[in-house]
């Protein structure tokens, strides 16, 4: 069974619908025992880092998430919360990944919009999550903060600067974009996660 972690950040229902379209059952819960016994765990989220981390700590989901042994997929805010620290609300995060999460910089003379909203490409794939995708696959992304590039980066996107579109370390996987909203490309990525041993 796939478990989607329920907490005070949006977007949970969309992930469940996306799995449903792939014919995969899932449950949405914040119950520690249920999460522990899941085959795979998805940690989604759209929202602000500080209240999200506070909620995870109150429910002791912070300790639970870092202790999980099965494949875990963080999405969007989920990826950012799995990093060390986020500039958003100067928030200490879960520390699974070494990368820091920063606000997109603004450049003099250029009006690049923040948040980045829309479809952008991922490239330099280094994960089985991207098996079967063509080069520069399009994914849907919505965010103002990004994880810098590092040795855990498994896909890159360019917006103002190159950043980590995906991170991976052991059983922990994470994507900055929204596979559940990224059309057939997103379905391939979710299916690759579902297919993990």
């Amino acid at each position, binding site marked *: 069974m796939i478990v989607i972690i329920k907490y005070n950040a949006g977007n949970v229902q969309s992930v469940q619908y996306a799995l449903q379209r792939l014919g995969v059952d899932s449950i949405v819960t914040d119950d520690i025992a249920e999460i522990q016994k899941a085959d795979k765990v998805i940690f989604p989220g759209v*929202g*602000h880092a500080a209240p999200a981390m506070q909620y995870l700590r109150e429910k002791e989901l912070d300790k639970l998430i870092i202790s999980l042994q099965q494949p875990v997929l963080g999405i969007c805010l989920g990826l950012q919360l799995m990093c060390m620290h986020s500039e958003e609300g100067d928030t200490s995060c879960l520390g699974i990944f070494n990368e820091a999460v920063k606000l997109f*910089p603004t450049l003099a003379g250029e009006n690049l919009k923040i948040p980045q909203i829309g*479809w952008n*490409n991922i490239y330099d794939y280094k994960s089985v999550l991207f098996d079967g995708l063509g080069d*520069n696959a399009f994914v849907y992304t919505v965010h*103002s903060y990004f994880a810098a590039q590092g040795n855990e980066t498994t896909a890159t996107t360019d917006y103002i600067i*190159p950043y980590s579109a995906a991170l991976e370390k052991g059983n922990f996987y994470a994507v900055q974009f929204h596979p*559940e909203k990224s059309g057939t490309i997103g379905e391939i990525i979710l299916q690759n996660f579902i297919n993990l041993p």
Partner: protein
Amino acid sequence: MNRTLPNGEDLPPVSLSAGRGLTKRIIPCLDIRDGRTVKGINFEDIRDAGDPVELAIAYSKKGADELVFLDITATIEKRKTLVELVKRIAANINIPFTVGGGISSVEDVAVLLQNGADKVSVNTSAFKNPVLLEQLSNQFGSQCVVLAIDTKKEADGEWYVYLNGGRTKTEMKTTDWAGQAVALGAGEILLTSMNNDGTKNGFALDITATLSRSLPVPVIASGGAGTMQHFKEVFETGNADAALAASIFHYKEIEIAALKKYLSDQLIRVRL
């Protein structure tokens, strides 16, 4: 291009080759009344254009980047129908969608987002109660708060904000309201020119460019699309981040796949 931050730090270069970077978005808009899709001409003369979920699925398959559903039947009993519709859309399509129409509270938004909407659009209620934008962005993040503005160019050459689906004129200039709204937390502006809407003579390039160049958030241009060239103009001259249209897509006057091919041939970055 200057790649230096305000603090003097140099940025690593981004690849400008290999067709990477954020794309311009094509957004079909579905006006909903009593659970059906309709399209008004100059906000009047409403005609029926089909089942919204069927249309949504068809558009997502044809390459629409996003969808907007505007509910123009904002009575209490119909609101429940809207939530049911949002659920059906979310269960059936794999691209993002925005829901608008009669949204006036944090509770309204919570229900729509919980049922699978990615963003909500607010218009009159935010104008009358601007703190709503602040509440929504604090609660849900500015990325899901779209401010819709219906605007009309008056004889004095200025663009003014209209409310209540274009029926009520205000004395507020569109540039002023958009600036305030973004400062309060609007994460995107959906700008509909009433002068252009339904004419098929092209988008309002001047006000679109003014807002897009001055605001730090994306601007979705709406109203007036009639030809593929109009989309090219609104992205190039109007500097829009996205373009929205309804009837030309519903009545198949322009196919989305052909439009995106055309834009790509014109060297405008789109998702193919």
